[in-house]
């Protein structure tokens, strides 16, 4: 790790880039007519911001990234960098650098040659290249590996070389295509922190693609949740988790119970509902209007608490799944089967299958949203 006292570090480009995607469309020819991979995507990435495109496979996130990089040509819409349309620029003329899923290190070049590849093509001076290399090796913790071949490195080291190779180019925008998916779980955690640390230190605008929600939640300033080529929601990780815009988002990020309710009083952003005999005021999606009919109350499993019921509780425990740090219950109620998670379970006070329980939902963490 670099020392805290102003170490030699990557120079930041003059300014981090502002990225703008306007009405991006991408269709591919399919067997039964064209398939829309990216469907009217609009997004603004502020300079220095770390934005993650998150979604299931085939949601269009990678295609969107590749359009930004210039590897794919959009069927419609525009990509702008600092207000200037860059659709006509070939990928090598875009001041962006990409970190690939499989690292894409050049196997016939050494670590040093890989890192300086772009600088050498750009015709930088020998001294310039040497000092950039030194900075990259130092700050990416690669000292002593510069003469190795990529295949002699561990996965984590390869990943750091790939990152260093992108960073020495001083890109206005850094692009990541699922860069951690080939690493094992422990290393992945460490690399997340490393990438985020460097990105913050340099203030580089970053667009990051992943299907791992945990990765997205822990790294991003904002998350873009995509589904079937469309953006479902753009928001901070906290908002995405507690105020999902759609049922898809709520379901895709973490786990959620959806309880069908008829809201009683809907005013700007809040509503009153009665669930399992519990009357409460909860936050509601701002687009929700009064008298819309049944809507969903979204409650995360960890926001529901169970208490023992002596006689005729609100629910019956159907199944208990023990995970160690949590225990999951499936509870049958008149409102449907609910999943409840209890963190840090006490082994002496576990419910058994068949136990009657009372149920309390935390109204502060529940959220009302429209059915799709």
């Amino acid at each position: 790790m670099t020392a805290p006292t102003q170490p030699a570090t990557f120079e930041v480009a003059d300014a981090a880039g502002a990225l703008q995607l306007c009405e991006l469309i991408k269709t591919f020819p399919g067997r039964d007519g064209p398939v829309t991979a990216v469907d009217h995507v609009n997004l603004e990435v502020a300079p220095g911001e770390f934005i993650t495109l998150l979604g299931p496979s085939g949601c269009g996130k990678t295609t969107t990234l590749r359009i930004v990089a210039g590897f794919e040509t959009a069927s419609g819409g525009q990509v702008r960098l600092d207000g200037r349309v860059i659709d006509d620029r070939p990928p090598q003329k875009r001041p962006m650098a990409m970190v690939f899923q499989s690292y894409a290190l050049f196997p016939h070049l050494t670590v040093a040659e890989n890192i300086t590849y772009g600088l050498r093509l750009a015709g930088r001076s020998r001294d310039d290249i040497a000092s950039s290399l030194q900075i990259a090796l130092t700050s990416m913790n690669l000292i002593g590996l510069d003469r190795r071949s990529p295949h002699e490195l561990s996965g984590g080291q390869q990943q750091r070389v790939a990152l260093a190779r992108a960073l020495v180019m001083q890109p206005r925008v850094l692009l990541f295509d699922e860069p951690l998916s080939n690493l094992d779980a422990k290393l992945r955690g460490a690399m997340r922190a490393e990438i985020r640390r460097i990105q913050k230190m340099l203030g580089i605008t970053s667009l990051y693609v992943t299907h791992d929600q945990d990765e997205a939640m822990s790294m991003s300033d904002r998350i873009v949740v995509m589904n079937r080529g469309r953006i479902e929601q753009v928001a901070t990780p906290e908002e995405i988790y507690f105020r999902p815009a759609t049922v898809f988002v709520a379901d895709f990020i973490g786990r959620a119970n959806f309880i069908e309710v008829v809201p009683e009083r809907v005013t700007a952003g809040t509503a009153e509902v009665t669930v399992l005999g519990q009357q409460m005021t909860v936050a509601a999606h701002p687009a929700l209007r009064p008298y819309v009919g049944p809507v969903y109350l979204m409650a995360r499993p960890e926001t529901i608490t169970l208490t023992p019921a002596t006689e005729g509780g609100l629910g019956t425990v159907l199944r208990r799944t023990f995970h160690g740090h949590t225990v999951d219950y499936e509870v049958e109620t008149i409102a449907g089967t609910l999943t409840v998670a209890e963190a840090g379970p006490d082994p002496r006070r576990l419910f058994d299958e068949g136990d009657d329980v009372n149920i309390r939902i935390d109204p502060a963490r529940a959220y009302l949203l429209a059915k799709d």
Partner: protein
Amino acid sequence: MAVLVQSPDHPSTDEKPRGPRHRRRRDAGVTAAIVLSAAVVLVGSVYPVGAVLTTALSPDAFGRYADFFTSATDLRVLRNTLVLGLLVGLIGTATGFLFAFVQTRLAVPGKRILHVMAMIPIVSPPFAVATAAIVLYGRRGAISHGLFGVEYDIYGLDGLVIVLSVSLFPVAYLGLLGMMRALDPALEEAAMNMGASRWQIFRTVLLPLLAPGLAAPFLLLFVEAVADLANPLTLGGDYTVLASRAYLAVTGEYDTLGAAVYSLILLVPSIGLYVAQRYWLGRKVRATITGRPSGSVHLITGWTRWPIFAAAVLIALFIATLYGTVIVGAVTRTFGVDNTFTLAHLREVVTGVGREALLDTTMLAAIATPVAGIIGLLIAWLTVRHLRATAPWLDFAGTLGVAVPGTVLGIGFLLAYRPDLYVGPVKVLPGLVGGSAVAGGAIAIVLAFVVRSVPAGLRTGSAALTQLHPYVEEASTSLGATPIQTFRTVTLPLIRSSLLTGLSYSFARSMTSISTIILLVTPNTKIITSQILSAANTGRYGVAFAYCTVLTAIVLTSFGLIRLLVGGSATLHRVASAERQPR
């Protein structure tokens, strides 16, 4: 907490984002590469084949088709051709399968030697096998007559089938070997697990899975067999096939129109089957065998392995006698008759009249090889990475050099480039073919070498590129490299070993090619293979063997030389395994 963002959000834009899309302009280097490779395939194969087609479809030619399909002689030629293709396809594929099966499924000793034996015919010059077969197994053959006292008439269909099967089966062997290695052993383990015996596994799992894979080498061998000219000329006797008939029309009867007609009739099945093999079956086979093999192959250890093994060993021995004869025959006065050692044949070839042919052929092939290798790789790179709609066309045009029978291509060259080329009254291009041709016909010969060899570079190149994940090249682009810079600094070094294979193969092909070249040689430009033909046809077998031996030696030496120049390495394999995607 911030207010929920409406989705999808709409950033305010003053410019209308949609509208007519202007496509990004293509990189100048890529355009140059396209123009260059298109020019080579147009001049080298598309235009000559076009010349054959226009001649064969001109009004003058129509009467000839009526003649052809009413003449018993001509119909017999057509039938002969098809029967030959069918038999060679069947026997060659079966032999290839036998060798691949022994190699991948039997627990027997000496597999490496068997593999080498099966590879020998690939580098062998034409006529070598045919001439050796005559000397060993013909009417006065050293084995057939000398050992068993049989006067076996090897000329005709049986001799052709044997010789062509031996020469061509390595193609089937290599294809099937790869396929059987790629076959997931877990499937066989699953069958075994459910109680299937070895024979049942073979019948119910292995054969059905390989069935589409067997069709491809069959078609390929069929096409090669019907296109072959060298063997029918030496071994055909009065068994005439279309290729030798067309050749005779040009060289014996000076009837180019007739030759064009025979060519077209030969062209229809060869191109059709080639296309079927390459584009249609290729896709099918890949769909059957997918995924990475897991589990391990269980080799057959019971007694059944011995008869199968014995069959393969017998064939290998047969091959060994043939090639042994070529080498021994080169230093024997008259093989089988006067078995005294002599260097006269070799001397004639190396220092005597053969010298000129050796030098000419080697020089022309040496000029053609790098051109063919680079053009082949360029086409592969363009079709795999840069072109979309036009990719199949360029690929097909590049492949035309081998899809078209060599004789037909040669006739195309005659039709297209023998006359001086005029635009209006101005002579823009003097004749390239014939006695009065520019540079003694050398230009046409080099061009023919190039187009016959381009497909080899193209195939190996596109196979290597398909293995190489595009991410590696995109990484280079993303770091600011233009397409040509990427090709030079990343792609080329990574597919160097396949470039090596492509170059070696194309040199070997040029040195040993006969069917196209034989129509293009002039008194000023002598080519080894046509010298072999005249030696074999005049019964000077010793000289023919000497030529074959020297030719093979040159080819093998050049393999080493190319390896030294290009630098063989295992880079590709490393890349292939490093870049395999988890998804």
